[in-house]
Every structure is written in C-alpha cells, then in structure tokens.
C-alpha cells in the first residue's frame, strides 16, 4: 500500500511538472508576453519599449532558466538599471546592498508563488482567498448533489424497468445533457428575471461572497449540482440494479424479509461502492462547472480567478491556478483508488 501511494505521488509530481511546463511555455510565447507588457504599460508601446520592459522584468531569459527560477532551483537574475538594481526576486528598484541581503532563490520551493500582475498582489494571498470562496460553494454543491443523486439512483435502480425507473432515468439523462451555461441561463431567466415575474432568487451571487443566504446562493449551487447529479444517479442506478439481481438479495426475499429492509440493510451498502469512485472523479468536472457558474453569477472565486488570469496572461497566477487544479484532480483520483480498495475487499492494489 505504501509503495503504491508513493508511486502515485511520484507520478503526480511528474504530471504537475509537465503540466506547469506546458502552461509556462504557452504563457511565455512572445505574442503573449507582448500582450502582458502592453496591458501592464500602455497599448501604444513601441516594439523597443515592449522589449525593454520585458527585459527589465526578466521575461527574456531562456525558457528553462525562467522555469527553474519559478520552481526555485535556479537563482533569480538581477539587472543593472539607472538608479539601482531590478530583478526577478523582488519588486521595484533596490540598491546593491539590499539585493545582496535578500535570498537568491525565489520559487515555489521557497514558498514564493510570485506576484499577480492582474490583481497587483502576491499570488499566494489571492489563491488562498479565492479558494476559500470556492470551497464554500463546493461544500453546498456537495451537500445538495450527493444525497439527491444517491436517492435518485437507488429509487430508480431498486426496481429496474419500472415506471419510476423510466421517469427518474429520463430526468437523470436530461440533467447530464444540460451544461451549466444552459441550466444557469434557464434558471436565471425563470426564477430571477422580471419577464416571468417570479423574482424568487438573485440572478447574481456577488453579495454571497460576504454573506451567503439561500436567496443569493441557491441558484449557483443548483446549477453546478444539476450537471453532476444526473451522472452520479445513473451510476448509482446501474450499480443498484446489478446488486438487486444478486443471489443474497433473492435469498433474503425468499426468507420473507420486507422489501424496505432488503434495500436498506442488504443492497445499499454494496451498491454504494461504485458511486463513491464516481463522486470522487466528479471533482475535475465540477472544476469546469465552477468556472462557468462563477463567471455567469459573478461570484469571484477560484474559477473566476482562472478566467481573469488567463485572459490577462497573468503568468504567475495562471501557473498557481494550474498547480492547484492539477493537484485537486490527481488527489481525488488517488483518494478514489485508495477508498475503493477499502470499500471493496475483493480488490487489492498490489
């Protein structure tokens, strides 16, 4: 088990390194750097001004050196300006003595995630704050999505082919066919617009960042939850339907156990192994939903930050965002694998 986890962690770090390098490469292409320089300076900069700005900020070093600096395995570079030194490891102009007193390495290994050019603040502070906001959103999504999906799936799967099953399965298919930007738009139009006259909820969730209430938070939570609910429900249904045909269920039924007890005491425990994996693997999907919903409802969390960072070519912030999302994806995969082994003793990782 330990070997398995260590190997997976190794693969995880390798994946994260490769992915951040890809992001690094794409954001450091010259047209992107030019865009960055122009958004930071002004849009009428000449090519020479762009080049000198980029040199001063350390963007014109070789790609591998820059990547090493970001990681913290290559010392940061400094440049001699007119009134002192500028460099990749500090902001603004400083004297030679001040620079000499500073640490030479400044990468994520030293805990320095860089500086966001879009928000003009340290990346680590931004990420912590935004992740917190998205965490609240995800908590409510999970609280809504998991129980409703499991109930739907168990109800549909306990009598396969019945009318309840058909109806619930159609509902489940419909929700999986509805991407967040469609369900969000429909929900806002119906429940939050003046045209239909039902102004039950708020169409934006901006106020929910300070003070989440049912009225400003339910629509975004429902929008994200809907897309995942159908999928988990279908998986639960398939698993439940399979368990219900098992020998021990038939035995219990022949002994005269009540149907309710069969479902609750005998079938449910075995039927819930498969959905557990599916729920864990839903996290990467939810990440997409979070980006769309946070943009649609103007809730300034992690997904909104991703959009802001990407559309402004904010290199440090974008890298941090990708590191976080990659680790979320890979960690949930690892947890689902380990959890599966614990839940299902027939399977072993070795």
């Amino acid at each position, binding site marked *: 088990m330990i070997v398995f986890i260590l190997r997976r962690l190794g*693969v995880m770090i390798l*994946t994260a390194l*490769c*992915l951040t390098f890809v*992001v690094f490469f*794409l*954001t450091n*292409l*010259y*047209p*992107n750097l*030019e*865009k960055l320089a122009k958004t930071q300076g002004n849009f009428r900069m000449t090519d020479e001004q762009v080049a000198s700005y980029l040199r001063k900020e350390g963007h014109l070093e070789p790609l591998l050196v820059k990547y090493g600096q970001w990681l913290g395995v290559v010392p940061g570079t400094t440049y001699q300006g007119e009134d002192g030194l500028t460099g990749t490891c500090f902001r603004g102009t400083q004297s030679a003595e001040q620079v000499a007193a500073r640490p030479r390495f400044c990468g994520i290994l030293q805990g320095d995630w860089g500086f966001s050019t879009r928000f003009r603040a340290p990346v680590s502070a931004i990420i912590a704050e935004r992740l917190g906001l998205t965490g609240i959103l995800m908590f409510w999504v999970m609280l809504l999505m998991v129980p409703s999906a499991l109930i739907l799936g168990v109800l549909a799967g306990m009598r396969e082919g019945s009318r309840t099953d058909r109806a619930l399965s159609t509902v489940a*298919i*419909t929700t*999986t*066919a*509805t*991407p967040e*930007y*469609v369900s969000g*738009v*429909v929900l*806002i*139009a119906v429940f*939050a*617009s*003046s*045209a*239909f006259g039902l102004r039950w909820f708020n*169409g934006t969730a901006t106020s929910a960042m300070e003070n989440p209430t049912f009225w400003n938070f339910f629509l975004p939570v429902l929008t994200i939850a809907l897309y995942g609910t159908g999928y988990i429900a279908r998986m639960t249904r398939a698993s439940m339907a399979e368990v219900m045909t098992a020998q021990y269920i038939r035995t219990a039924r022949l002994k005269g156990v009540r149907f309710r007890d069969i479902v609750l005491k005998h079938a449910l425990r075995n039927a819930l192994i498969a959905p557990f994996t599916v729920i864990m693997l839903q996290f*990467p999907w939810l*990440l*997409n939903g979070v*980006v*769309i919903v946070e*943009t*649609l409802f103007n809730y300034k969390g992690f997904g909104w930050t*991703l*959009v802001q960072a*990407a*559309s402004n*070519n904010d290199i440090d912030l*974008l890298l941090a*965002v*990708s590191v976080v*999302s*990659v680790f979320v*994806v*890979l960690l949930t995969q690892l947890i689902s694998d380990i959890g599966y082994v614990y839940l299902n003793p027939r399977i072993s990782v070795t």
Partner: protein
Amino acid sequence: MELLDWGEIFMRILARFIPVWIALAVTFGLSIAGKRRLGLYGKLFDSPIGMAGFALVMFWVFTGILGGAFDMIVTHDVLAQSAAMKNEVPGTPYTKMIGTVAEGAYPYYLLGGDNLGRDVFSRMVAGAWEVMKIAPFATIFAFMVGITLGLPAGYYGRRLDTILSFLANLILAFPVILLFYLLVTPEIVATGIPVYMAAVLFIFPVIFLVTLLQTRFFTQTLKRNIYVAITLVIGLWLYLGIAWDADPLGIVSFPPNLLVVFVAVVFVNAPTVFRIVRGLTMDIKTRDYVAAAKTRGEGPWYIMLWEILPNARGPLIVDFCLRIGYTTILLGTLGFFGLGLSPESPDWGSTINEGRKLLSIYPHPALPPALALLTLVLGLNLLADGLREESLRD
C-alpha cells in the same frame, strides 16, 4: 401591424420548419419500412427512447443543413441589424428605423430581437449549422486519433502503453477551460502552434485509413495499390489544405480561427477515446478468435484493425453519440467564453454569452439557443441510450 400572441408565434414557427418536418417524415417512413434489413440502425426503431433521441438529433441535423446550407428556414439575415428591433419581445412586427422594409421580407421577428436588433429565431437556426459543421468531424477525427493510438497501446502493452497512457492522463488532468484559454487565443494563433498541432493530429486519419486498407488487401497487390493510392492522394491533399493551408490546387482551405477551435476540441476528446479503445483492446485481445488469427500468422495490425476493432464497435458507437454531444457542449463553452469563433457568429454558445448580459430584463435572446443546445445534446444522449439497449439485446 400587431404583436403576435404565443399561439400565433407557435404556429408560424411550426410552419417555418415545414421542410424539416417533411425530411423527418421521409426518414422515419423509409427507416421503419426497412427496419428488419438495416441492422443495428433498424433495431433503433424498436426502442421508444432511441426513436425519440433519433428524432431530436435528426431535427437539428435537417434544420442545420436546410437552414444553414440551403437558406430555407431562416426568416432574416443572421447578421442584419435593425435599430428598431433591439430587445423587442417575440412576435414583434419587423420594422426599420432607417429606410423601409424590403419587399417580401418576413413581417415578424418570431422570437424577438437581440441587443443589436438581430432576429433571434434565424440566429438559432443558423447556430445549428455551426454545430453541424464542426462537431461530427471533430469527433470523427478524435476517434481516429484515439483508435490509432489506443489499439497498439492496448495490444502491445508494456513501455508503449505506459508512455501513451501517461500522455493521455496528462491532457486529461488539465482543466478543459484552462486549456481552451491557453490554446484558443489570437496570440497563440499568431505563433502558429495550432497549425503544428493540426499537422500532428490530422495525419492520424490518413495513417489509420492507409493501414486499414494495407492490412486488408496486401495479398491482392493490384487492389491494394489502387485503394492505397486513392486514399493517399485524397488524404494528403485534404491534409495539406486543412492543416497547412497549402493546397496545391487552392480549393481546400480552412480559416485559422476555425482551425484552432477544431484542433482544441479534437485534442481534448482524443485522450478519452484512447482510454476507451485501450481498455476494450486489452479485454478483447484475450479472446479465442484473436488467438486463431495469430495462429493463422496474421500480422499485429491486421489483428488490431480487422479482428479487435470490429468487435469493439458496440461501445464505440454508443460513445460516439455521447461524444458528439460532449463536443457540442465544448463548442458552446468556447462560445460562452468568447474564445475562437468571431463574436458575430450565430453559434449557440456565443449567442448565449451575449444574451446573458441582459438576462434578468430580456431573457428571450438567450433562451432559444440554450434550449436548442439542450435538446440536441439530450437527443444524442437518448440515442446513445437506445443504441446501448438494442446492441445489448442480441
């Protein structure tokens, strides 16, 4: 003229779709009449769910082809703006602020006008054509890439499998939207990276088809030579035109901003197809008929393409339907974030994105494209469900 009420709007929309109804009726009539001779496709008409899905999908296919390519259903030019029609509610008579309405123009905006005074109904119909142009082809390309790499990975296993699976997982670990934001920007198009990616991805269909024919006919040299030559000439001609925009005859070309969308969608879909094909191959390669083919002395690629692949077709066809739906969702996502396609384009994602800004006051411009996308994807999912049920039956 007066505002139409909802009943009249509904009747007029039904009337506009008459060509589609005729096409649907013909398709269903012919298919049901010949359903015993049509294999899996015919069996689809035994399952109500499959039929409902098929009807929804074909509705949008016909709408796309007849409305987009033949200009039949649309009532107004999708780009024509009329300042007098800005945000007007459904059923408003068509007027113009400057100039007079042209003779014979359709007298109403059936589903109202958007914030630039364009006809929402026509844009929704034209949006179907935007999807039809990209989604099926992108999905086919993704399948060819996934199959060409997944078969050897599953069949040979070992080092090859490890490397390819790692690469596939790498792409899958990327949040899709981040990938789109990194790939589908004018800056990236300027660097030429999409062209290189297209050059790598689009060579796979050619390789796939050539290998397919070579392994089948290599004992009949003449036949083989003719087939492979035809495939190579047409394949490489299209390849040069689409990927490199260097068609020697100057007929085939691909707009760069569409190419980047196409590449991004294929790139996101191919790893999932790869994983499915790899899994199926690992399962099927242990069967007796594969061992029999090996004993006959067949080559590995013959076994992969002509023994394993045909026997994996059931799950692959089902996944193909689901994946077109997913590709449609991805295209909508691109439009929703304003990436790739031009902002004027009538595709559903862009229209939803534009409509959402005034959603709480004027919901009518955003709802039709949203519901259109929903019904198309729902149709594809139902179709996949019907196919799965019918293919499991025998």
